[in-house]
Structures are given as structure tokens and as C-alpha cells.
């Protein structure tokens, strides 16, 4: 089932590849996809789809998820913890402001270059633990450069707070307050962050270990459907489909009598066959796809109508039922074939349109289901209805032309 029926999130991200070396674009995108996959793991989605689209886009589909905002945040997150020191001098520019005051990035100079202290210098082996007092700790290790930076910065800041920020926002503890521990001693190899809840700490740890997305991504398309809305659609579409079929059968039986009964049987066969094909070919059933299917039910009887009308003409011309069936089918065939080709052309074009645009699912679903529907309807009209009709040839029923809505005395 498509996202619009199952509920979930469909996101498309545009990657900015301008900073990537030529020839390594695919690698960069694949790297980004790998990171997103790890992040999505945190959410525990059952069948996520994360794939490249075109040259520089990434599609993320998370079916069945209801916490859209959280998922989006997690995927799009910078996943970079930055450390800040308090702004002391007047007029100095602050990068962050929170209830503890103004902050600027904590920097140190190594090898003659000024660098900011961030989680980019973490080893990807962070984990969560509890100390003897039951406090939850997010433990991390600095890599070589990080150790040097940390040593210099914490050495300078003993007795001062060290702010921790996630992107533009303060990292908030379980108590809702920004986490900013006072530096007790010089920190070189490893450190810990206190104050997060177990859940938050675990997620953050996984996120940090998943690494950073190597290229900037911008969300260019988003569709979120709540699972409840999705299931409403399914129910309503099924209802529409069933009522449509019943009304068509009634009409066909009233108008075409015995032929109509046979056409109705063919219609049931048709419905079953199409649904079986949907199972066989992995058609993503979207709302539009169901629309296409329901529409094709209406069009499916067209081939039957063409044939029956032809048969009636042949019967009126005085042919026997057997002859009328055969000529009816033969003569109607060119019209059935030629007229359905136009629908096939349109389906092909719609399929192309669907495959070429970002919000593709509804258009493609419609094109595919309508195509399958019309193709199967041609088959059932020729194979099923004709076979059923032939069964009546030579029986006593065949003498009763009123059964075919022809009055003996007419014309």
C-alpha cells in the first residue's frame, strides 16, 4: 500500500554537491543514505525506503509512522554537538543565547589554526551508562585532535560552565533546562554528559555514532499522512468500488438481460483477476491507484457493451444466436482494440509523468492500475463473456430472444 493509504512520511531531499569532488558524487550520496539509514533505525520503522532519486536527490519513505515531526528532525538533524563558553566581554558576538546567558563557540588553536570544539572529534563509540548514584551518563571519547582541543579548552575554563548545543539549540536535560556543566578538571581523553533521560541519551548516542551526513541536504518535498486518515481512505474506496460494481451489474442485467447476467459474472471474474494481478505485480496501491481501478470497473463493461450491442444488431438481422455471438465479437473487436489504444497511450504518458516528478506516487499508481484494468477488461470480455455465451448456444434458452432484450416482432 502507498503512503497515502498506510500513513507515514514521504520526504525528498535535495543534496548540494557543489563541494564534492567531481566524480565522487555518487559516493557522497551513498554516504548520506547510509547515515540516514542508521538514523532511521533509531525510530524502529518496519519497512523504510531510503534511496537515491536522479543524480542528487534522496527519497525517504517511512510507512506507518505517526510521529512525523520527530522523524523529520531526526533525519534532518545536524547531529553535531557543539561546545560553547560564556561570552564575557561586552559587545562580543554570541552564537547561542539561553537561560544561563550568552555563549560563543569554545575554540582552541592547534597547529596554528583556530578550531571549534564539537562532536566531530568524538570517536564513534559513544554509549550510555548509569553511575553508582543512578545518574545517566552519555560517555564519549575524544580522538587525537579532540583530545588536544579539549585539554586546552577545559584547562582554560576550570570553574566555568561549558555549554552544550545541538545545532542552533541548547541541548536540554531531562529537567528541561540547558545542559551546561561546570568544568571541574582538565579533560583529555574521554568525557561524559549528564542530565539527559535514558531515552534521550540513547538516541543521541546512536545519532552521534551514525556519523554526520557528508553533504548539505534540503527538504524539497514532504508528504505526511496520519495512519488513521489512510485507513479511512481504504474503507471509503472499498465502499465506492463495491457500490459501483453492484450498480453496474444491476444496470447491465436490466438492460441486457441474460447477456447482462453473463457480463456481471465476467465483471466479478474481472475484479478478482485484477486484484490478483495487483498482488502479483507489486503495484503500490495509492488513493489515485484505487481511483484508477474503480474507474476501470466502469470502463471494463465497455467491451461487453460493444459486443452485446453488436449481437443485438445481428440477432435483429435474423441470425441465430451462435452466429450472432461470433459475428458480434468479430465486428466489435476492431472498435474495442482501436478505442482502448488511446487509453493505453494516456496511461503510458501518465506513467512517464509520474516517474519524472517528485510527487510521483499518485500519478504512477493511477496509470498502472488503469492500464492493468483496461487490458484485463479486454481479455475478460473476449475470453470469459464469449465462453459463457457459447455455453447457451443450442440450449432452449437460446430461442428466447427476449433474454437478449430483443423483441421478436420488432423491426
Amino acid at each position, binding site marked *: 500500500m502507498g503512503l497515502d493509504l498506510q500513513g507515514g512520511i514521504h520526504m525528498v531531499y535535495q543534496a548540494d554537491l557543489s563541494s564534492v569532488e567531481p566524480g565522487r558524487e555518487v559516493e557522497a550520496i551513498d554516504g548520506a543514505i547510509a547515515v540516514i539509514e542508521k538514523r532511521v533505525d533509531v525510530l524502529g520503522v518496519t519497512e523504510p525506503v531510503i534511496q537515491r532519486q536522479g543524480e542528487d536527490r534522496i527519497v525517504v519513505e517511512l510507512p506507518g509512522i505517526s510521529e512525523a515531526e520527530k522523524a523529520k528532525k531526526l533525519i534532518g538533524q545536524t547531529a553535531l554537538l557543539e561546545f560553547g563558553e560564556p561570552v564575557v566581554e561586552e559587545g562580543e558576538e554570541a552564537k547561542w543565547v539561553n537561560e544561563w546567558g550568552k555563549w560563543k563557540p569554545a575554540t582552541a588553536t592547534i597547529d596554528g589554526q583556530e578550531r571549534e570544539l564539537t562532536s566531530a572529534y568524538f570517536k564513534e563509540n559513544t554509549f550510555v551508562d548509569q553511575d553508582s548514584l543512578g545518574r545517566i551518563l552519555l560517555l564519549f571519547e575524544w580522538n587525537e585532535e579532540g583530545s588536544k582541543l579539549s585539554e586546552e579548552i577545559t584547562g582554560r575554563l576550570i570553574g566555568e560552565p561549558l555549554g552544550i548545543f545541538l545545532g542552533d539549540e541548547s541541548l536540554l536535560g531531562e529537567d528541561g533546562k540547558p545542559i551546561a556543566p561546570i568544568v571541574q578538571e582538565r579533560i583529555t581523553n574521554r568525557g561524559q554528559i549528564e542530565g539527559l533521560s535514558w531515552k534521550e541519551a540513547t538516541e543521541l548516542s546512536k545519532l552521534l555514532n551514525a556519523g554526520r551526513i557528508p553533504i548539505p541536504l534540503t527538504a*524539497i518535498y514532504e508528504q505526511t499522512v496520519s495512519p488513521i486518515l489512510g485507513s479511512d481512505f481504504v474503507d471509503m474506496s472499498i465502499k465506492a468500488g463495491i457500490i459501483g460494481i453492484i450498480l453496474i451489474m444491476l444496470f447491465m442485467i436490466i438492460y441486457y438481460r441474460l447477456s447482462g447476467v453473463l457480463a456481471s459474472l465476467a465483471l466479478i471474474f474481472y475484479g478478482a483477476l485484477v486484484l490478483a494481478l495487483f498482488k502479483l505485480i507489486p503495484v503500490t496501491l495509492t488513493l489515485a491507484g484505487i481511483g484508477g481501478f474503480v474507474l476501470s470497473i*466502469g470502463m471494463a463493461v*465497455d467491451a461487453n*457493451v460493444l459486443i452485446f450491442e453488436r449481437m443485438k*444488431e445481428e440477432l435483429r438481422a435474423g441470425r441465430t444466436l451462435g452466429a450472432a455471438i461470433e459475428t458480434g465479437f468479430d465486428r466489435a473487436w476492431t472498435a474495442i482494440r482501436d*478505442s482502448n489504444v488511446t487509453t493505453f497511450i494516456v496511461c503510458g*504518458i*501518465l506513467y512517464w509523468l509520474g516517474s519524472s516528478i517528485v510527487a510521483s506516487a499518485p500519478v504512477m499508481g493511477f496509470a498502472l492500475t488503469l492500464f492493468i484494468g483496461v487490458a484485463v477488461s479486454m481479455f475478460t470480455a473476449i475470453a470469459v463473456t464469449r465462453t459463457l455465451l457459447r455455453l447457451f448456444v443450442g440450449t432452449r434458452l437460446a430461442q428466447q430472444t427476449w433474454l437478449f432484450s430483443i423483441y421478436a416482432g420488432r423491426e
Partner: protein
Amino acid sequence: MFDITGKKFWFFVISGVLILFGIVSLATFGLKAGIEFSSGSLMTVSFEQEVDHDELRQELANLGYTNAIVQRTGEGDFLIRLPELSGGAKTELEAGLTDRFGTLEVRGFEDVSPMVAAETTRNAAIAVVVAAVGILLYVTWAFRRMPNPFHYGTCAIVALLHDVLVVLGIFSILGGILDWEINLMFITGTLAVIGYSVNNTVVIFDRIRENLTVGASSNFEIVVNNSLVETLSRSLNTSLTTLIVVLALLLFVGASIQNFAVVLLIGIIAGTYSSICIAPQLLLVWKRRE
């Protein structure tokens, strides 16, 4: 025997008036582009408490969204059309609405960036053009053994344009009055109508072709009229069965595919009409001129 071809003058007048209305309405109201084509956000919100349409719009204006379009769906939800909501704007909007109206649930959300919108518009335009050309070529090919196959193709295309103009005209009125928008489902529906309309025309042309081959009459007008009468019940019955399912879709599935179902509804009626009253009549007029 009905005389259908004899009434062609009136058919042309009716269609002419309809299309004229459509063009005037298009010129006055234009078409409102949906977010797929113009970028922006579309939010489906359901409130726990009863919320008044105008109050909701007022509150949106208070929150800074003066141009928000608010529609009520059949299920009592609200569709809110907004400019693109970036970053935290969506969360802020939700918080603002919750403050005013109580608990709400965002049941659906779609956000399209201008880049995606431009691509979609371009490709949809290509699709419509390719469909028209493809069908012209196909119809010409299908009637290649007839004298003047090009006439058949052109008349089918004129009938098709007729249907599209009627659909567009009615939609611009709906857009002007009810804020209906042209979205991707609208384009999908229109292309389906194009296929359907030509389908009908081809069946009738096929009968004309057969009757000409059989040599039923040397008078072209009689051949056309006979063919129309012979195919009339088929044309009407097929349209009827298709209309039944489209109505079922419209009534039971409702708002989310409303555009699609209404396009099909109008398109099927216009298509049936044009395949009987426009395409074959034009063929006749053209033939007589030569």
C-alpha cells in the same frame, strides 16, 4: 430513425456558448494552481471541538497567514492551504491553533518547494502536449486506409480540445467561487478524460469506417447518421456505467480526490457529447466543403 446529423447547427451553437462561457470565466477568474504547481503547504487538520470556518480563517490571519485558504472536507476536517512552511513555522502554527481551538490533529501535511513545483509544472505541460500529439498520430494511423485519414485525426483532436476547454472553464468557475485548485490529480483526471473522449470518438469513427467499406450508402451524411444511431446506445451505456463509478468515488471517497472525480464527471459528459455531436459533425462539414 433519429436524425442526428441534421441538428449539427444546434450542437455547434451549444458547444460554442459553453466554450465561450468557459473562456470568459478563464479570463476573469483564471485557474488557481495547487501547491504541486505553485509551491506551498497543504495541511489537513481535525479539531476535537467544533470549529467555525470563518473563525479558523480569522485566527490564521492573526497568526500571520492572511492568504490562507480554508476548505471544509466532507469528514469535518479542514484543508488549509498555506505558503511554504519552513523550519519551525509548522510547529508554531500548530501551537497557535491549539491555543485558540483546543486539541487538534494534523492528519495530513504536504509541502512542496518552488523547485519541485517548477519541475512538476514543466513535466505536466510536456505530458499534455505529448498526449495530444500521440493521439493525433494514433488516430491518423488507425484510419490510414480511409480517404483523408488526417481529417479523422483532426476532428478527434478538436473534440478532445472541446472537452478540455469545457473542463477548464467549469474549473475556473469552481476556482473563482469555491477556491478549487488545479492540482496533480486534476491533470491526471484531464489526461484520463482525453483518453476516454477519444476512445468514444474512435468507436463512432470505426463504425463510419465499416459502413463506408460495406458501402451501405453513397451519401456520406446518411452513413454518418446511421453510424451514430447504431452506436448511440453503446455510447450512452458505456458513459453511464463509467459515470456510476465516478459518482460512487465522488460520494464515498470525497474531498481528497474531489478534483479528480469532478474532472472525470464533467469530462465524461463532455466527451460523450463531443464524440456524438461534435467530432462526426465536423467530419461531415469538412467533407462537404471539399
